[in-house]
């Protein structure tokens, strides 16, 4: 192939990004929760989205997941347009997430929760399931193995048979991560995973996020805990009133006077 090589676009991101969001707009009544947000996430990074309360971070996640229908913009994921797809189809493209307000299946055990996370990796028909054909039995075993693998990665294997509702809060949040990972996503969205965790749990979370990144999963992280964010992120996006205030590496963001003025207030401790 000797095709003409066009000069690279001005963007500094090499190759094509895993996720490219352009001009995303979402309003609720009069509130512009997202006022034309654009950014790109390269594969293999931990990409953080920060901003004050009500900046539109969760709204951005919900729009990415097809839970809201943004009025304009585009969401390209591995060159596919996600805008307009129903949530379960977006999940099938390789996106998984956790929730700011826990959305565990409290009517199931930890293992079953994570087995639901594997839903897209295998298919069982109604008839085969009702008759419990031999292949369904084998499938169940495989689902169980996958789920246990995800639980082990999150250091939850000893809790497998416990009912999800009986766990302490910190572990419930970890089960959500395990459940999302069980889907083997290419992009994992974490919405405030450190909220409500104590210092030890937050340190463990930092290790877990690094482990997940090292396993090849790209992470989009919404988080208020600055030491954690600055410690694990490769790049950051700062949102304020639904608009992008700044974008760059942790060092660039910490040096950006607009960010310091508008959001970090000049008195933020970045150290871990």
């Amino acid at each position, binding site marked *: 192939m000797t095709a003409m090589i066009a000069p690279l676009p001005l963007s500094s991101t090499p190759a094509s990004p895993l996720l490219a969001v352009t001009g995303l707009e979402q309003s609720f009544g009069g509130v512009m929760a997202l006022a034309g947000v654009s950014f790109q996430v390269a594969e293999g990074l931990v990409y953080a989205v920060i901003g004050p309360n009500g900046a539109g971070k969760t709204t951005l996640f919900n729009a990415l*997941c097809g*839970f809201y229908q943004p009025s304009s913009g585009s969401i390209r994921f591995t060159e596919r347009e996600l805008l307009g797809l*129903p*949530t*379960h189809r977006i*999940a*099938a493209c390789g996106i*998984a*997430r956790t*929730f700011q307000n826990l*959305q*565990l*299946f*409290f*009517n*199931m055990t930890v293992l*079953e929760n994570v*087995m*639901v*996370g594997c*839903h*897209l990796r*295998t*298919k*069982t*028909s*109604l008839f085969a*399931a*009702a*008759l*419990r054909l031999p292949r*369904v039995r084998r*499938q*169940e075993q495989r*689902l169980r193995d996958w789920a246990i693998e995800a639980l082990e990665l999150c250091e939850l294997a000893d809790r497998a048979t416990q009912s999800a509702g009986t766990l302490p809060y910190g572990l419930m949040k970890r089960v959500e991560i395990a*459940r999302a990972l069980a*889907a083997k996503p290419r992009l994992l969205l974490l919405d405030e995973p450190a909220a409500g965790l104590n210092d030890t749990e937050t340190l463990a979370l930092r290790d877990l996020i690094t482990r997940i990144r090292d396993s090849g999963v790209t992470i989009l992280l919404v988080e208020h805990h600055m030491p954690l964010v600055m410690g694990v992120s490769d790049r950051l996006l700062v949102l304020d009133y639904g608009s992008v205030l700044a974008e760059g590496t942790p060092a660039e963001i910490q040096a950006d006077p607009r960010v310091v003025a508008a959001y970090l207030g000049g008195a933020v401790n970045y150290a871990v």
Partner: protein
Amino acid sequence: MRLAGFYIFAAVVALLPVLFPDNYFVVVVGTSAGLHVILAVGLNLLIGYAGQISLGHAAFFGLGAYASAILSTRFDWPSLLALVAGLIAAGLIAWVFARPILRLRGHYLAMATLGFGIIAHVIMVQATQWTGGPDGLAGIPPLNLLGWQVDGDLQWYGVIAAAMLLVVWLSLNLVDSQVGRALRAVHGSEFAARMMGIDTARTKTQAFVVSAVFAAFAGSLFAHQQAFVSPDSFNLTVSVELVTMVVLGGLASTFGAVCGAIALTLLQQGLVVFEDYEMLIHGALLMAVMIFMPQGLFVGLTQAAHRLGSTLARSKFRRSLD
């Protein structure tokens, strides 16, 4: 073992007529309880597991019954074929109605299914040339299973018991499978379920269709067993009864639904004298369960037995200290 409870239940069901031969109560009330179990176990998939209410489920019970009645009396279809046709019809109708109905939530879903049940009942009463109207349809031939004509109370007990055990087994398998977990996920958090790639509309539809087919199965057996059907057996009261069974037994437990169905059948037998107050008693029962035993009879009684057991053990321990 996964199916230990099922085997115990099957053994009890099989032994009852052996232990009490010629016992009217066991055999006749047993068949009625068996049909109720089929209905309740199916409805529990929808209400207990998928978390979707249906206040019109008697419609599918009636559909199965009338399909068998009409096809075998007016068209001389073999009874087994009429039964299968009833199942298919119920499945198709449930499938067509599921999407528009199950898009609704909470009170709206309750009202829509209530309306569905009422319309079905009106059709049974009004479509006289097909259904025989309020007088019903008589002369339905008995079930003929590939040459074996089901005859007499004991044989009916066997057939209905086998059908019931089949439904319980299918339901236990379903719940403990990927399909069943998807159902429970929809109940637990619809948003999270979607995010796991579950097509929630499709999943709810599956639950609705399966519960409708089970109800039609019970209806068809009922029609052939009674040799007569009339709209009274499928009215609003019956729909409420079915919900009561599911709630009474304990939501989201197949054996809970089994217990609820049996308990309510026995209660009805004990209360025949109070027939006029049946609705009232059901209502009171529903309220009492919700207030005192929100997890239902099955869990409630298991826990009570547990407590009793530990109290006994403790008092025994204390006595041993004396």
